[in-house]
Structures are given as C-alpha cells and as structure tokens.
C-alpha cells in the first residue's frame, strides 16, 4: 500500500523531469529562438527575476483580489438568486428561461462593455468574474434544493415545521453537495474570467502583465506567468475540494471519490 502511494507521486514527477530535460535538449540542439520557444532554464530565470523584483507579486495581488471578490460575490448571488427560483413557482416562471439563455452566452464577451461602463480598473474585472462565477453555483443551487428526498420533507411537515424549517433542516443540507460542485467549477472559471478581462483592458494584473510581455516578445516571461496561473488554479481547486470534504462529509459521492484516489 505504502509503496503504491510513493509510486503515485514519483511516477508523474519523473515523467515531468524527462519532458523538461528533452525540451531543454531539443531547444539547445536545434538552436530554436528564445522568442519562439524559450528553454525551461530561461523560464525559470524569468520566474526568479519576476518574483525578486516584486513585479509578479504586485500583479498577482491585483488578479488575486479580482478572483476572490468576484468568486465570493458570485457564490453569494448564486445562492440568493437560486433559492427563490428553486422554491417558488412564480420566480421559476419569470427567471428560469433567462438563466438558461444567459448560461449559454459567452459571458467573457461582456468584458468590453464593462470596460466602457466601469473603466479599466479592478472593478470591471470583479464584475466579469462575478458574472462568470454566478452560473455554475446558481444552476447547482436550483437542482440541489429540489433534489430532496420526499420523506425528509414529509418528516419536517409531520412535525408541523414550516417552510423555513424545511429549508434549514433539509433543503439546504441536501443542496450542499451540489452547491460545492458548482463552487468548484466556479473557482476555476473565476480565474479564467479575471485573466480574460485583464487581456481586454487593464491597468494591472497578471493578464495585463502577460499582454505587456507579449508586446515586448518576452516569451520566457509569458511562460513564467502561465506557470503562476496554473499554480493558482490548482491551489484554489484544492482549497474548494478540501472545504467540500469538510463541510459535506456525509455525502457518499464525495467520500467515495476521495477514497478511490
């Protein structure tokens, strides 16, 4: 068992090292231009330099804030909007068709409009991120609040519990696994949205920095930011996954999936 666990870590890492080594060798042997394809060692240097002179941290802080505020806002709006749609027929009739329609829309395409409305500062990035983060949560809240075992509702009703008791004791906990699944999708999309919005127009942020380096043909720098973004994405997902296992510990699908890993 234990050796298996070690193999699971060591094997992919070995593959990574092999890939990096052959990349490095290929670029050196065939003398590929740094502008086209930098060597891994050059990317590493760019990464080091960027962190040492503080440029990366400055822009990372901006993007980080956009992702964080956008995501949290999206989750809150998703729950506040999803609950009435899930529980009230009137709300459903009024809003659900539009939600389905808006879900199909590429929301990042709203970015230029937001630049016009609220400017190139971080506010427009937060708004874009929020719009993108809302939908996975919203849809899962609606599905989750409805996917309730009828006997559990009957239990609360048999005790003369009202709508609020139903919601608090049964519907919300039943929906929690769905809400977390939505949040995991949202957190990854939030990062995507923030970066894409920064591409469109910004004063700071990793997406902004990336376009600046692109214009300077600083390919190692672009690669360096790509690595940073991947690390942020993985970290955010792992935090969400950890939170899910802590909060919805009773959910068999969550638990099983984790065990099989």
């Amino acid at each position: 068992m234990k050796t298996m666990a070690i193999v699971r870590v060591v094997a992919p890492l070995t593959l990574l090292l092999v890939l990096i080594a052959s990349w490095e060798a290929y670029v050196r042997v065939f003398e590929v231009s740094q502008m086209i394809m930098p060597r891994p060692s050059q990317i590493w240097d760019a990464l080091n330099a960027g962190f040492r002179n503080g440029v990366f941290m400055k822009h990372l802080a901006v993007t980080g804030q956009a992702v964080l505020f956008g995501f949290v806002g999206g989750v809150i709006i998703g729950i506040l909007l999803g609950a009435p749609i899930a529980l009230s027929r009137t709300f459903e009739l009024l809003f659900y068709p539009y939600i389905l329609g808006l879900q199909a829309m590429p929301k990042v395409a709203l970015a230029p409009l937001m630049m016009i409305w609220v400017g190139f500062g971080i506010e427009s990035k937060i708004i874009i991120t929020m719009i993108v983060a809302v939908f996975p949560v919203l849809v899962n809240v609606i599905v989750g609040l409805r996917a309730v075992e009828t006997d559990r509702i009957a239990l609360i009703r048999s005790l003369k519990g009202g709508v609020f008791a139903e919601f608090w004791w049964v519907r919300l906990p039943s929906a929690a696994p769905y809400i977390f699944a939505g949040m995991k999708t949202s957190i990854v999309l939030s990062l995507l949205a923030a970066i894409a919005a920064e591409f469109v127009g910004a004063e700071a942020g990793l997406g902004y920095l990336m376009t600046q380096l692109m214009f300077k043909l600083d390919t190692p720098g672009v690669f360096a930011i790509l690595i940073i973004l991947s690390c942020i994405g993985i970290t955010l997902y792992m935090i969400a996954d950890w939170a899910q296992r802590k909060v919805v510990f009773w959910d068999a699908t969550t638990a099983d999936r984790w065990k099989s890993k």
Partner: protein
Amino acid sequence: MSTSILTSLRDTGLADMSVNPERNLNAKPILMTTPDKSAASTKPFIDISGLSVEYRTLNNERVQAIKRVDLTVPEGEFCVIVGPSGCGKSTLLKVLAGLVAVSGGVTTIAGESVSAPRKDIGFVFQNATLLPWLSILDNVMLPLKVQQRPDRSNWKKRALDLLEIVGLHDFSHRYPSELSGGMQQRVGMARALAHDPSLLLMDEPFGALDALTRETMNSELQQIWMMQPKTVLFVTHSISEAVFLADRVVVMSARPGRIEAIIPIDLPRPRDIETIDSTRFADYSREVRRYLHKKEAKA
C-alpha cells in the same frame, strides 16, 4: 380537556419511561393510570368517518386510494393496520399526520378536525429517514428543534434518555451512515418520541429489516409502548407482526382501500417468543389471513 391530558403526559415526561415491572405485568397498562385519561377514553381519540382519498396519476386518471373508511381508536390503543400493498394503509397514516388532502369524510384527533399537521404526532417512516448530516443525538432532538420546544437545556438529556431506552446511548455522537438498518430504525423511534407525542404513526417501520431483527424490534417496541403508553397506529403487511403487536388488527383490502374486518387480539402482555408459538396466536393469525385472502379471491 384534551390539552390537560397532553400537559399531564408531558409533565410526567420521562419519569414514566423507567422500567416499572409491576406496570408491565398489567395485561392492559393503557387502561388507565391517571383519572383524567379514563375520562377522555369515553370519546375515541381518533375518529375517522366516511374518509375517502383520491389522487391523480400522471395520466390524470383518478384513483381512489381510500373509499369511505370508518375507524375509531381509543386513547392508548395499539392499533395495527394490515393489508396488501395499494390498500391505502400508508395513505391513512398520512391523512392522520395531515400530510394528504382528503376528498371526503371527517377525521378528528382528540376532538380536533385534522386538516394540517399537528405538533403532538410522532411519525416513524419505513426507511428510518434520518438526516445524514446530523449526529444521532441531533437527529433525535430534531422534533424539539423544529417545534422550538421550551426548556432548551433539557433537550439533550431527553434525547439521551430516549437513546438509552432504544439501547443506542453510546452511539449518540455517531452519524446515521455508521449504523445498521435496525439501529437506524431504533433512532427513528427515539426521534418520534422526542417531543412526547400523544399519537405515534408507524408506516411499516420494520419492513426493510431482516426477519430476526424484525422480531427483536417488535418486542422492543412493545416494551417501549408498555413503558410509555401512547396511541399507536402501526401499518404492516406482516400478519405475525400485526398479531404480535396489536390490541386490535384492522384488515384492509385494496382498490379501493376499505376496511375488511377488525379483529381484537386478546393476548396477555408482554408477549414474547412463547406467545408466537401458542395456539391462540396461530388462531388469530389464521383469522387475519382468512380476511386478507377473502378479498383476493373475490378480485
């Protein structure tokens, strides 16, 4: 009148639930320990007259689940309803719980017409229907929390006492998924008693359990009921379970659901394995079975 009974039951609370061997020896402990209770028993606790329930299928066809059923149950009786599936016996319980709309007839509990759920009913479901996100203790306390009962500081003690009675005191901090089916249903019973209801509705509570566990649960239920006598309406399709538990067995037939026969079971309590092997038990079982099959032959 009826409210004073409820409060007196509530006041005595769990002091009543300690095992009292003398009381267990009474063949009919339900008749009656306090004077105001016997006064109430002159009027039936549950009075169902002309009850009909209809529902619509997905094809919008009307189906008569229950047709003109009359039934009265005195306070403190253990009444078992037995019948084939589709005879509306579960629907009858849901009507009493105020969960199903009726299409005709009058149903009263303690003199009050039933149109909505009541606070003094405990419902035991076929699948224990515990909430997996709550610990066993919190599951048992659920009725107290939902109903915002007074005396919040006593909730935990009351729940633990009930878990003691069903033999699961040591499991109070576990979660439902860690318990076997029989244990879960014990918790379900403890929960149904948490708010000290005057009426216990049990919808095939042991139907999903294996035969051996089921027999154990039956005698445990009998013990609990003898300790704290409540009016019980128990639905099953097991004849032996019905005869073992009941003061009276109500035999229902299907499509439309109606009452075929009511058979008083005059066997001394506490009933045990010996009772099941007795000839009188066999006689009662035969009688119940005869009524169940009579209708089938007709159909």
